[in-house]
């Protein structure tokens, strides 16, 4: 039963997202379009599963939602901080730095979400991954203490992502 389910829905979360996106694209909710969205949501993950063979084993949707809210809040705060830095700190006093974040996460999906989060939040851009995927290279716009930036990324985001992808 579970095997047949996985064959039909290789990526259940992707199915859900595709259905919701299709329905939003219509800009109005009608039964026909929701059904068509579900059909797309089944066909697309099934047809593309050859290029995405390993699915994350466990995925907590509820924790992902609270993570999204935290990140949204951080983005707003980050924007104000970065705007302040851009407008008030002269270039000569700007202290950009490389920050190396050792990764405990192993799933590629989790690492890409972490990298995306880092780029969207406080003055940091994720720039590169080491060749075997054990560290993430992050560029900070203005920091006096790169270690504090690294610890914050690990505690605030990576710890939560570890609970989402189990």
């Amino acid at each position, binding site marked *: 039963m579970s095997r047949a389910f996985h064959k039909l829905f290789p990526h259940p979360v992707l199915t859900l997202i595709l259905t919701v996106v299709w329905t939003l694209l219509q800009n109005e909710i009608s039964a026909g379009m929701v059904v068509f969205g579900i059909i797309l949501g089944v066909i697309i993950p099934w047809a593309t599963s050859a290029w995405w063979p390993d699915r994350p084993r466990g995925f907590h949707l509820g924790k992902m939602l609270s993570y999204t809210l935290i990140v949204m809040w951080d983005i707003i705060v980050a924007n104000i901080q*970065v705007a302040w830095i851009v407008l008030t700190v002269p270039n000569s006093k700007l202290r950009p730095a490389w920050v190396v974040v050792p990764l405990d996460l192993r799933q590629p999906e989790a690492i890409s979400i972490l990298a*995306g989060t880092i780029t969207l939040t406080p003055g940091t851009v994720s*720039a590169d991954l080491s060749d*075997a995927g*054990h560290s993430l290279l992050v*560029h900070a716009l203005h920091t006096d203490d790169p270690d504090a930036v690294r610890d914050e990324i690990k505690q605030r985001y990576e710890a939560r992502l570890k609970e989402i992808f189990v």
Partner: protein
Amino acid sequence: MTVDLILTFAIAALLIVGAIFTLVGAIGLIKLPDGMTRLHAPTKVGTIGVGAMLLASMINSYVYGEGSMHELLIMAFLFVTAPISANFMAKVHIHRRACDQPPAPPRDDTWSTLDTPEEDKEHVETTA
């Protein structure tokens, strides 16, 4: 009536906020000294600038029209794609040695952008 008025002010405020952040992003692009720091201004300030304007558009459509959820999709697509373009630009800067070289990673050999296969090495040095 009063709700309409409040929402109209909310739309105006969001448009102003969006415009201010977009302006700061543009200023940052001009002002910041090198490629890597310049990357920070548009990726960050751009997201909230566009986000606030889209929120204003959404409220406006609900107050004066039929209501629209397309803006949520635009925001979602923007948030998914912005880090990828930023990552590509950062990789280009590292690859062309256009910025300070990053420290070596603690556990692995090198960063994947600098991980040139042995047979291509000479070629890279001559073009760089």
